[in-house]
């Protein structure tokens, strides 16, 4: 239902052109859950916003590539078509629940606005629908909470309200941009649970963005690993966790705190490369514990590594396995 084809998104800044998304291709089937993982600044949010053409223009431009939603290219839609897409076919839950609700309007008003945006109905019916949505996302006492202002909710509750808002027109795809990053750990688990339930009830495909592989492990069918504006590995959750084929993914996995694990958390050394002047060879080479001389010259493409599994690395599976043991033991 969603197909992203060789998408490039550039951001025109005073320092130069930031290649925030640099040739990304993937697709999502109806009802599927896809996770996008990557460090801060890897272009996850810019990519997610592109799916609804929500990046502010300027600075954003789309010099190359296509985004198809139900075989219609989002990047060529006019204003009216975009409006019909947004919230109706594709809906989004943003990173920061504290600032994503309008502070001067009641929650109910904001919900009803979303409900009415795509299908006008009588006031009373819209209000009932709003209450039902709030109940669906687990807000206690929705009949009275509908008249509360956003600041009268906790962070977790606000994120629930935002999820309810995203569901208003029963979209086919729900994009959740780090929906739990700003929340406490216990609340995080609740919100993730909620997303799972929602998917059951509404049957929407979910694209969940996070920098925490732990979050997607329990939710996603397939995982897409992003680094410096590109996809560096893409595969089923099994592939990513047990048949890791790209050193960056491997480093990310090592940095997950696992419950009861004895080993220390290993953060990834170094900084992500400049997105204005990317390095000549492989983008990850400067930080890669496996890097060889060749990596400085060859910019690897995504290559198939088995059924539906792709990775961008010049190391073959067997080479990778043998070096992995070496690095891990040192």
């Amino acid at each position, binding site marked *: 239902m969603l197909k992203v084809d060789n998408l490039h998104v550039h951001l025109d800044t005073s320092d130069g052109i930031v290649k925030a998304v640099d040739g990304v291709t993937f697709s999502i089937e109806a009802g599927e859950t896809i996770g996008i993982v990557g460090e801060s600044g890897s272009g996850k949010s810019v990519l997610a916003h592109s799916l*609804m053409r*929500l990046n*502010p*223009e*300027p600075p954003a431009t789309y010099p190359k590539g296509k985004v198809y939603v139900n075989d219609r290219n989002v990047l060529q839609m006019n*204003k009216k078509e975009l*409006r*019909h*897409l*947004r*919230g*109706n076919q594709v*809906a*989004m839950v*943003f*990173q*920061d629940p504290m*600032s*994503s*609700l*309008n*502070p*001067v*309007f009641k929650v109910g008003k904001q919900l009803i*606005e*979303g409900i009415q*945006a*795509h299908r006008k109905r009588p006031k009373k019916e819209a209000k009932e629908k709003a209450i039902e949505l709030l109940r669906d996302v687990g807000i206690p006492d929705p009949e009275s909470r509908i008249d509360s*202002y956003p*600041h*009268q909710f906790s962070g977790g509750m606000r994120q629930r309200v*935002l999820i309810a*808002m*995203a569901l*208003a*027109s029963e979209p086919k795809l729900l994009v959740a941009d780090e929906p739990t990053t700003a929340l406490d750990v216990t609340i995080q688990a609740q919100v993730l649970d909620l997303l799972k339930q929602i998917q059951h009830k509404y049957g929407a495909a979910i694209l969940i963005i996070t920098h925490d592989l732990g979050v997607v492990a329990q939710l996603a069918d397939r995982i897409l690993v992003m680094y410096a504006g590109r996809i560096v590995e893409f595969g089923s959750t099994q592939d990513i966790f047990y048949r890791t084929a790209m050193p960056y993914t491997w480093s990310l996995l090592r940095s997950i705190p696992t419950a009861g694990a004895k080993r220390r958390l290993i953060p990834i050394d170094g900084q992500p490369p400049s997105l204005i002047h990317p390095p000549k060879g492989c983008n990850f080479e400067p930080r890669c514990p496996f890097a060889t001389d060749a990596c400085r010259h060859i910019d690897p493409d995504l290559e198939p590594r088995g059924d539906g599994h792709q990775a961008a690395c010049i190391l073959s599976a067997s080479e990778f396995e043998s070096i992995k043991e070496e690095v891990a033991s040192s």
Partner: protein
Amino acid sequence: MLQYTIRRLLSVIPVMFVVSVIVFMIVHLTPGNPALIILGEDTSPKAIADLEEQLGLNDPLYIQFFNWLSQVITGDLGTSVYSERKVTELIFSNFRPTFSLMSLSMILLLVIAIPAAIAIVALRKTVLDPIFTSVSLLGVSIPDFWLAILLVLGFGVALPVFPVAGYVPLTEGMGAWLYHLLLPAFVLAIVEVGIIARMLRDSMLESVNQDYTKTALAKGIKEREVLVRHVFANALIPTTTVLGATVAGLLGGTVIIETLFTIPGIGQLLIDSIHRRDYPVVQGVVLFIAAIYVLVNLLVDLLYTFLDPRIRYD
């Protein structure tokens, strides 16, 4: 909120006290004998002594102040030396034209500034943007009084669409009232339009980049509606903070505008009374204007807290 309102109301008391001290001192800071100044050089010593007695000028200063203040508190601002009418009565009859002028001016101000700010923000990405920027730059660098004179010359003299003098009360018909008041109200407003429009524009541009704006757009709401509803509602809150200063500007401006257009308002009363050395009236008018200013600021503060539910419900 209630607590804040009470605290804010109480804070008016010390402010008004300081104001009244200053107003009281107007008479006493002027060099020379006030009675002599009021009556002029060629007056008999007897008349001067009588006036001194009438104004209580022979008592010690603090007694004079106390007497004056206790009268003021009971609503007695004294009697005009010139017309021998009660000062409160004079203020009351002169306030209507001023109130008319200021209200109309305020309406014009908002009717011009709000759509202008919204238009500027809505068209910020189009070719019109640099035009707006240069016009507003021009607006800032043109002296207000010069613009005012230009408007009067333009619409009062060169193209005599509007009268350049006079005032007709609202009771004698809306049309005549508006006809006489429109030009002075416009001239008065134009000076403040830039301030409000600019503040509103800046706040809106800030609000445009907030997450909740993105949320609203992501719901599939028209960009124009998002701007007028979500962005504007938020931008209104910081903008109210300059409203107090705007009203102060309008109050100050009326004194000049009323003189320019011979509108029999508070401003003209003040100027005339200064010329006539009619101290009780000068004191009364200044105190009255100060009280209005304090009151308006109080209302603006309360409006501010009312517009922001985060404060209203605390």
